[in-house]
């Protein structure tokens, strides 16, 4: 396998982008990435795009060709492929692109992620996102994604003494980080009191425990190590990109408070990268709900099972902590553009490792991105290094 580098990144604004269509959003991220990589366009060999539900959000399928077309690449006739794994679709696209380059099949490949959700109403948007859980045996019963994560949170609290305050602190941290990210959806600080007094969505989760559902697109451009050197002096290497799956429904899992897919994907990734969890300097994790960030600390091996809340209590994952987590603001405050999220996480880690993260810059040589689908039936763990 060849070593794979990221040579360019781009990201649209995340949020309610009323005046931008799906095509506009994708293009804005794509152009930024091409500029960042110093590419004209014709150098690109293939596209992989993560998109969860063009069909239901836009009544538009065949997103792969559409993206190639509106990125101005139609006449290159390059292969373009859409991949889907709920809100881990972006992570999957990254992994497909990574494999295409690592295998020697292609030299320069685009990994994109995009979702346009605000053309349907908020309730429909949540219903569509909830179809990343089991439609027939979970969502049918009124257990949508917030309710399912709420049941994870309830049990984590019961078993390990995690408190509502711990969840709120994740939200406060991520909001604070987002104030430093110009692409973020929510760029204002919130107090612990505001988070703790926000209305319940699904007990024990409150409004500020839940990420928004956002419009947005992100793009990273991958190249083989040799090719990368032609385009950039600051390549960021992907030292592992691993994917794992689990039962689609929460009720079928070995343990409700552990995402085994995350455990498996991260173990593989650490092994492949030849590192241990403690070697990670910065991480973007999938905080679709605050409890998911706390569980991610545990399942990624940053701390042992049940002690995730300690990291947030002790400030370990703050921007100035030992392992800053979600410096971008995470899904909670940067926004959660479903299929785009896995790529946006990669963009953030690359910026951090290149030293291009502006006011939210942390000191890091090695970073990790965790993208999950639904309640954890898919996990993609990617490790980056300078």
């Amino acid at each position, binding site marked *: 396998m060849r070593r794979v580098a990221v040579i360019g990144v781009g990201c649209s604004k995340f949020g309610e982008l009323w005046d931008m269509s799906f095509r506009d959003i994708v293009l804005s991220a794509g152009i930024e990435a091409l500029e960042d990589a110093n590419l004209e366009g014709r150098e690109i060999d293939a596209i992989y795009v993560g998109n969860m539900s063009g069909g239901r959000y836009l009544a538009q399928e065949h997103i792969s060709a559409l993206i190639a077309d509106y990125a101005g690449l139609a006449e290159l006739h390059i292969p373009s492929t859409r991949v889907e794994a709920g809100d881990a679709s972006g992570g999957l696209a990254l992994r497909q692109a990574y494999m295409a380059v690592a295998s020697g099949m292609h030299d320069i490949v685009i990994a994109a992620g995009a979702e346009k959700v605000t053309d349907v109403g908020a309730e429909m948007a949540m219903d569509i996102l909830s179809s990343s859980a089991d439609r027939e045996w979970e969502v*049918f019963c009124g257990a949508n994604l917030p309710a399912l994560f709420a049941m994870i949170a309830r049990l984590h609290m019961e078993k390990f003494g995690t408190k509502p305050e711990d969840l709120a602190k994740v939200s406060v941290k991520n909001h604070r980080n987002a104030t430093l990210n110009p692409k973020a959806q929510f760029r204002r600080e919130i107090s612990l009191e505001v988070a703790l007094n926000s209305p319940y*969505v699904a007990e024990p989760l409150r409004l500020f425990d839940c990420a928004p559902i956002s419009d947005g697109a992100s793009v990273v451009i991958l190249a083989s190590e040799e090719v990368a050197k032609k385009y950039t002096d600051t390549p960021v290497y992907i030292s592992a990109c691993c994917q794992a799956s689990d039962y689609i429904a929460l*009720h079928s899992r070995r343990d409700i408070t552990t995402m085994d897919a995350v455990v498996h994907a991260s173990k593989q990734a650490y092994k492949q990268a030849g590192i241990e969890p403690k070697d990670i300097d910065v991480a973007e994790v999938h905080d679709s709900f605050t409890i998911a960030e706390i569980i991610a600390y545990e399942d990624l091996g940053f701390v042992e099972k049940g002690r995730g809340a300690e990291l947030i209590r002790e400030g370990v994952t703050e921007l100035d902590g030992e392992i800053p987590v979600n410096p971008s603001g995470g899904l909670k405050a940067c926004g959660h553009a479903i299929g785009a999220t896995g790529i946006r996480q990669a963009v953030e880690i690359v910026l951090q490792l290149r030293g291009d993260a502006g006011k939210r810059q942390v000191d890091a040589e090695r970073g990790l991105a965790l993208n999950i689908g639904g309640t954890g039936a898919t996990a993609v763990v990617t490790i980056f290094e300078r």
Partner: protein
Amino acid sequence: MLPRFWRKIKYRYNLVGTYCENCGTYYYPPRNLCPKCRRKSRIKEVQLSGKGKVISYSVVHDAPENFKMMKPYVVALIQLDEGPVITSQLVCKPEEVKIGMRVKAVFRKYGEEGESGIIYYGTKFVPDEKIG
């Protein structure tokens, strides 16, 4: 969605699950293949008792469109006495539900395809007072 609902009526109305005779594991929702035995699976359908206990739960306030009239409602992960954990609604007051409480299956409406569409019936749970 009509054929999709109809296809599983037996399992929804009646908690008919499956059992792997090779390893002795019960499944609900029903499975055609045992994930522990895979090709060695020997699956047969079984009627489950409908008794169990609450593993975890949530009181849903921000309800999906079909469930708005019921809010706040309780959803729960319920471990049936035969072993499998299922997701279901629990018909009780939000303040009544506790982890570990005994529950039993009842027949209720889950929703409908609009005022002129078919009605989705299925299994919910209520506190099983006899056992406490």
